[in-house]
């Protein structure tokens, strides 16, 4: 608790420098308003500050629950690969609440499209480096989340951006676990390889179709049979075989516009993108996968420096 004093800062302590460029993403920006680049006058450090958006919520139900969730989680997490919230700053009027965070020049999306070497695929060593960071951050979050687990927590509202949403969520499975996050990481893995989102659905139904087209329809899968019969679904999905091996070529060279992918890498990708969440690899196991222990060693991506 003594650290509470640190939180109350005067508005003058933070000087807004410029608006950070909006991410070039199509992702829902939902919860937040603008992000500023700013200087902390106490330390002279450059930071990013994120203004929490209050729409009509503020007058109806008070501080938005979505913002409370993110603040609570980010403040209690501490991991080298997770952006840290340094402090919360409250401005002169009630609608001015900011999260002060580490400032990064660009997000992964921008790095892929605009960073140095943007026109060529990432080297395999770079992809490996980024995948380890993402997976170890996720393993950390999962281990913390397990500690706070609420067994009957059903959040049926939209939880993940459509393109990265696990198939079981698209079938409104309300009882899900950390597997939905490893699915998303699988999507990111694929995206790092081709510098393009791999499952760009235009709606929930289209998203499902794109997933089944890439990975095949789970026709004789225990999990999906159970889920579908539980939901009393009579809808028949077109039978597809998996297209994954054709989409992500193993051992091919970068002329194809894809990063080099070792057989180990392909194996990890298909385990992350397992349609059956019960069989999907966990972040912790993924870190122990031979993809990381064999083959090329990791290398800090060019855009980091």
């Amino acid at each position: 608790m003594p650290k509470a004093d640190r939180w109350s800062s005067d508005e003058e302590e933070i000087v807004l420098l410029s608006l950070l460029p909006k991410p070039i993403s199509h992702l829902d920006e939902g919860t937040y308003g603008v992000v500023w680049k700013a200087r902390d006058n106490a330390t002279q450090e450059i930071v990013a500050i994120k203004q929490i958006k209050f729409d009509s919520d503020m007058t109806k139900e008070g501080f938005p629950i979505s913002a409370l969730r993110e603040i609570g989680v980010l403040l209690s997490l501490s991991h080298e690969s997770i952006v840290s919230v340094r402090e919360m700053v409250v401005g002169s009027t009630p609608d001015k609440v900011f999260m002060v965070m580490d400032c990064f020049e660009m997000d992964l999306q921008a790095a892929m499209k605009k960073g140095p070497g943007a026109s060529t695929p990432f080297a395999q060593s770079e992809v490996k480096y980024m995948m380890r960071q993402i997976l170890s951050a996720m393993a950390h979050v999962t281990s913390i989340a397990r500690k706070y687990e609420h067994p009957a927590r059903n959040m049926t509202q939209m939880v993940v951006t459509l393109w990265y949403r696990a198939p079981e969520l698209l079938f409104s499975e309300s009882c899900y676990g950390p597997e939905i996050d490893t699915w998303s990481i699988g999507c990111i893995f694929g995206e790092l390889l081709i510098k393009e989102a791999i499952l760009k659905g235009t709606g929930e139904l289209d998203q499902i179709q794109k997933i089944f087209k890439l990975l095949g329809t789970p026709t004789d899968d225990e999990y999906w049979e159970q889920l579908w019969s539980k939901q009393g679904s009579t809808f028949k999905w077109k039978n597809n075989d998996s297209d994954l091996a054709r989409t992500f070529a193993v051992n091919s060279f970068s002329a194809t516009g894809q990063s080099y992918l070792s057989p180990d890498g392909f194996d990890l990708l298909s385990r992350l993108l397992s349609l059956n969440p019960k069989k999907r690899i966990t972040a912790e196991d993924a870190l122990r996968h031979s993809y990381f222990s064999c083959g090329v060693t990791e290398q800090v991506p060019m855009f980091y420096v």
Partner: protein
Amino acid sequence: TMSKPKAIPLVPIPTSCFDENHLPSVLHQPDPMTPEAERQARRRTCRFIEEAGGQRCLRLPRVAIATATVFFHRFYAKQAFQEHDRFEVAMACLLLAGKTEESPKKLDFVIRECWKLRRKAQQQQLQNKLVSGGDSPNVGGMSPTNIMSSPSSSSGGDLHMKSDEFARLKERVLLLERVILHTIGFELSIDHPFKFLIDCAQGLSKKRLLEYNPTK
């Protein structure tokens, strides 16, 4: 035979923040409270939070009530009872804890239920006073307005959603929610000791050293 209990490492609590002689309410000028009065105000508000969050009012989960209580204690470690009405703070703590523990309750509902509960308590108090001859001591050295700032509409057991009192309370609770967040430094993930106890109890009952009897 009892097996030796395992030692649980103790995390030292910084004494400065709950030193009863240096609490904001005790140091408050020009209207200081005695440490005893401060303790009493805390006790009473905790009981209020407990009851308001419980099955007969807001039906919050156990852990949300505990979290609201922690928010409340931390709030008055930095703020004075003389500055912020403890009932309004209690309401805002319940509202906030409902959200942070993933069981949000509607603001209107929180206000209505808390108001009803408080009103019932006030009537009870009034009755006790009449029975005992009216000479009950001034509770906790608080200014009388703080204890008996009775809701304006005196008849009926419900607070009208369109009344001025309701609008005023709503505004206060929304403001206090932000003041609380600021005061507790947005520290929203609260670890409760109950988890330890539950683990202990489960361990003991597995070894049949403890029996679970839900009827008691």
